[in-house]
């Protein structure tokens, strides 16, 4: 037991719908003022977890604590949280102003204060021109703002966001992402944000919680997750383009890859001929057009984006490799190029897909580009 006050604490949360277990015992602490993102593929239980926190569903077992107070038996309306829904769930028959003030009227707040809060929130979100419209007359981005506004006026302990940007087009999504980040900076509230998009997670979060199959895979700051993924799943999930995975065998400190590359790796505990997977990020691979390097690959496809070039290549044994270079490179399909690997940026995953520890002296993956 800690005597420290957490904004939110989950203890051994489990949830099953009938015979199906959706959440398998989750422990998590979220601190005051943090922006935490739950991320994971669809069906990983992240939205369910959010609904448990909100009080819209009940956990099958386990405790939910808000500011060290157990709230399992407190109904959603009395937990002092507010939520932005994926569909926004704006009341279609009420004006924007009525939408914003509805929750405040429910708790019998004086009219003057309601108006003041609504006006403040509207100004903050730049929807003060839209207050007399109905949700049906608003664009997607505007509805999004109204939904956020409805959450703001209640001055909640914690904001909950359930994939709020998934209904917006790419450009608007980028813009709203920045705005929500700014909002967090301005308000300083605790926010919990659910998304399946790792880019949103990386750009907005103070801390990311990666979920898979109802279990937490890893919790950490965005760059920690990027640089030190705890397992193959997190390594593959975080980062775009995806990390390359190459099969090989670890013998002592020597890594023999199936594609032919042999390399010394400073693993903390030497291997004994285990089958392992090497993970290496596309930007950590060097390229030489004249074919020299640790190995040769055949270019199958490439994408020139100007500032960045993506190369999709294959080893002779069929394993594929994605390489990212921050320059323009003249390429042709079928061309043989040399690739070089830097063991410093290797991630090695054992047979159980858990990342192997490197000896301390050589663990310097932080700061890669």
């Amino acid at each position, binding site marked *: 037991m800690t005597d420290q006050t957490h904004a939110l604490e989950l203890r051994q949360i489990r949830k099953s719908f009938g015979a199906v277990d959706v959440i398998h015992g989750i422990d998590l602490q979220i601190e005051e003022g943090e922006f935490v993102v739950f991320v994971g593929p669809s069906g990983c239980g992240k939205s369910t977890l959010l609904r448990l926190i909100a*009080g*819209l*569903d*009940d*956990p*099958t*077992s386990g405790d939910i604590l808000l500011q060290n107070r157990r709230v*399992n*038996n*407190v*109904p*959603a*309306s009395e937990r002092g949280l507010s939520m932005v829904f994926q569909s926004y769930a704006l009341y279609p028959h009420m004006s924007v102003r009525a939408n914003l003030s509805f929750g405040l009227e429910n708790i019998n707040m004086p009219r003057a204060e309601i108006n003041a809060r609504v006006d403040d929130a509207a100004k903050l979100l730049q929807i003060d021109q839209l207050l007399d419209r109905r949700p049906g007359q608003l664009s997607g981005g505007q509805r999004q703002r109204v939904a956020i506004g409805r959450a703001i006026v209640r001055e909640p302990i914690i904001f909950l966001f359930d994939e709020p940007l998934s209904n917006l087009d790419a450009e608007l999504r980028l813009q709203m992402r920045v705005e929500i980040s700014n909002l967090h900076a301005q308000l300083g509230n605790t926010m919990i944000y659910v998304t399946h998009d790792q880019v949103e997670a990386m750009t907005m979060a103070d801390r990311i919680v990666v979920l898979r199959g109802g279990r937490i895979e890893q919790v950490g700051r965005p760059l920690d997750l990027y640089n030190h993924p705890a397992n193959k799943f997190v390594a593959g999930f975080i980062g775009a383009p995806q990390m390359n995975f190459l099969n090989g065998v670890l013998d002592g400190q020597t890594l023999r890859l199936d594609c032919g590359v042999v390399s010394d790796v400073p693993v903390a505990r030497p291997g004994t001929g285990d089958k392992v997977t090497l993970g290496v990020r596309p930007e950590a691979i060097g390229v030489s057009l004249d074919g020299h390097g640790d190995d040769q690959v055949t270019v199958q496809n490439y994408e020139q984006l100007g500032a960045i070039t993506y190369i999709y290549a294959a080893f002779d044994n069929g394993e594929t490799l994605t390489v990212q270079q921050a320059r323009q490179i003249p390429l042709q399909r079928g061309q043989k190029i040399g690739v070089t690997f830097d063991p410093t940026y290797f991630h090695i995953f054992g047979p159980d897909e858990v990342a192997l520890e490197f000896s301390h002296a050589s663990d310097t993956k932080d700061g890669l580009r």
Partner: protein
Amino acid sequence: MSRIGTFLTRTKGNRDTADRFGMQDFLAYSYLLFGVLIVLVPVAWTFFTSIKPERAVDNFDTRLLPYAQVETDIPGVGEKPVWIYTDETGTETLVYKAGPTRSVTDVATLDNPDEVFGVPRDTLEPQEVVRIATENYLDPLLKRNGQENFNFPTYLYNSVFVTVVATLITLLINAMAAFALSKYRFRGRLTFTILIVATLLIPSSIILVSLFFVVWSFGIFGSLWGVIIPAAATPTGVFLLRQYMLTIPDELLEAARMDAASEWRIFWRIVLPLSLPALSVLAILSVIWRWNDFLWPLIVLISDPNAHTLQLGLTQFAGEFNTDFHYILAMTVVTLLPITLVFVWLQRFITTGIATTGLK
């Protein structure tokens, strides 16, 4: 005390989402149960009465099971109902009434029919057995015991004929119209649509008189066609099908046209099969409408007993013999049985179908 109650009824969870069976659920289920009883009890009661013997029906016997008084053939006397006589000592003897029922009634035992003695009326109880009175059903159906007036096979045939033919015609011509309105752009489309909406607003009961003139001048008055044809084109059906056909992608029709299919063939090879869900909803609606039709068949068919539908036949039957409740109720059950079976079989489909189309 209340703590224990809370503990017993409480499961994990907060007030909003708790799974416990609270007062709200109790009220909700009581309401539903009460409603279902009101719906079912009259129907069930009709059924239970319809299997009771004539005497029980005439006496308004309110017991659930069909009790019939035992009758035996007494030598030299004939068929007589059997009564149970209970004397002062509580001994029970089987007797029959040898004379009219008075405060002291003359009875004789079955074993010794000639020895007549008087007993107080209130010591006599009918001897009863549970017997399903199949004759309530069989007499009218088989035209026995003077029940020639309920011509069940004819009525059934007429009802089925009207229902099936009208439904087929409705499906065909409504689908054709819906296809035209949903998949073609042509001059006058809006006009046609508005015309069909207009028919939706003309209730059948306000054109009864003049429709009678029209049907009469077409020479189909008094025949089943006079019931079938005027009701075949339904605005509801056209709209229901049109709404559905709008969801069929035009590309499918284009592809068929590229394959050199004629428009008619596109209609019945592609559009009709794809509209099957909507067609079946309309089919069921149409069956209900036509099967239960009353006022218009009453006007058109009443003069010819051979053209009566089941509904008309039942009305006439109930009107003529309004004392023979046992026959009337049995025939009522016979009439409601087909639609009940269809409903039990297709209830999920019917309720969801009607709920989604929201029309009648």
